[in-house]
């Protein structure tokens, strides 16, 4: 299966197979008016199967959101048909309004307009800690 390569835009590669739709949704790629290709279940030497997303336009990716959903993704920036930059995403140190605290005793459950802020507590275990109540929360993976 062939998808035309893009001339100016972004390629999100090495997405864990099955996660591309979530990324499409969370990065709000449906709001772009350029072409976006979602390629699912591509054979990969590294991962067995992977997903790829190609965005046919220059676009500033929210690396924190991406790193949180899937820290193994690589982001390639294509300009004039050449890859000018490859970024490896990683779990962000801090998440603002991406995770919601589930602790019913936490101030975030009652205070209007408060930012939900988490800090990375354990990189290997992918746990984040609410800065207010300090309850740990596992990221979905």
């Amino acid at each position, binding site marked *: 299966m062939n998808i035309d390569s893009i001339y100016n835009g972004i390629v999100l590669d090495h997405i864990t197979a099955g996660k591309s739709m979530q990324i499409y949704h969370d990065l709000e790629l449906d709001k772009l008016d350029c072409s976006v290709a979602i390629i699912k279940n591509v054979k990969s030497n590294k991962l067995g199967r992977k997903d790829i997303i190609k965005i046919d336009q220059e676009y500033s990716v929210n690396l924190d959101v991406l790193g949180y959903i899937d820290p193994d993704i690589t982001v390639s920036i294509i300009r004039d048909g050449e890859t000018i930059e490859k970024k490896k995403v990683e779990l962000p140190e801090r998440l603002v309004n991406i995770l919601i605290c589930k602790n019913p*005793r936490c*101030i975030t459950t009652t*205070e209007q307009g408060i930012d939900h802020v988490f800090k990375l507590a354990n990189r290997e275990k992918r746990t984040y800690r609410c800065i207010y109540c300090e309850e740990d929360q596992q990221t979905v993976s």
Partner: protein
Amino acid sequence: MRHLIDPMDLDVQEIQELLELANDIIEHKDKYSEVCKGKKLATLFFEPSTRTRLSFEAAMIELGGNVLGFSSADSSSATKGESVHDTIQVVGCYADIIAMRHPKEGAPLFASLKSPVPIINAGDGGHYHPTQTLTDLLTIQREKGRLENLTIGFCGDLKFGRTVHSLIKALSRYDNIRYILISPPELQVPDYIRTEIFERNHIAYQQVERMDEVIQDLDILYMTRVQRERFFNEADYIRLKDTYILDTEKLKKARADLSILHPLPRVNEISTKVDDDPRACYFRQALNGKYVRMALIMKLLEVGGA
């Protein structure tokens, strides 16, 4: 600008300075009677805690300052009324420092991120109560003359007792403290205290079910309340309840220089007959709470050389 939210916000050196200042206040009260003249402390108690609030207010008054504030009749109104954010914006305009108690965990931290004046956490749910920890440290230091080389027994509800968790954490930074944890199996300290405090720092600890087995080994006995509703069944409660009550009979085995602490209020876990024993420190401890709050207010307001 500094706040005090978590007792661990202060390093060992800063705690030492605060305790020294508190001791100096105790010895030379007159010297400090006007250091906060013209300053206002706001006590914002979104849930009631009369003793803690009065301790803060007495502290500020003895420093020559003034107090204002409110105390909600019950904790549910805190979650229905004005937001923490708006309250802090308004009160921050006319107070120089704020002591805040709130039923929700993290509320004082959130307030500190928005506040134009220093915030002192006066208790946030089951989370932190740093001025209680400072009170405990001052009491241990005054009673024992040191904060290291001690055998400390914690007795009662060690699972839900935040004062115990905070004090264990704070003491883990001092040398050669032995911990003896006296509780029913269902009320033992949470796992994170065992793994993140004791095991990570290679600190010796012992878990036992009965106070009378270990009371003779203790320099300090820190008593807490055991609530009936924390037990899984009535039979266990009846079997164990007297084990966690300190009376003159159990005290016979204890050392002459034991210090008995309790964060108060007590229900029945210390017999009132123990009150007259010189080893009972809990009323002196309550008084120390006022002095350590005086020292803390001075430090955060940066007055009187603190």
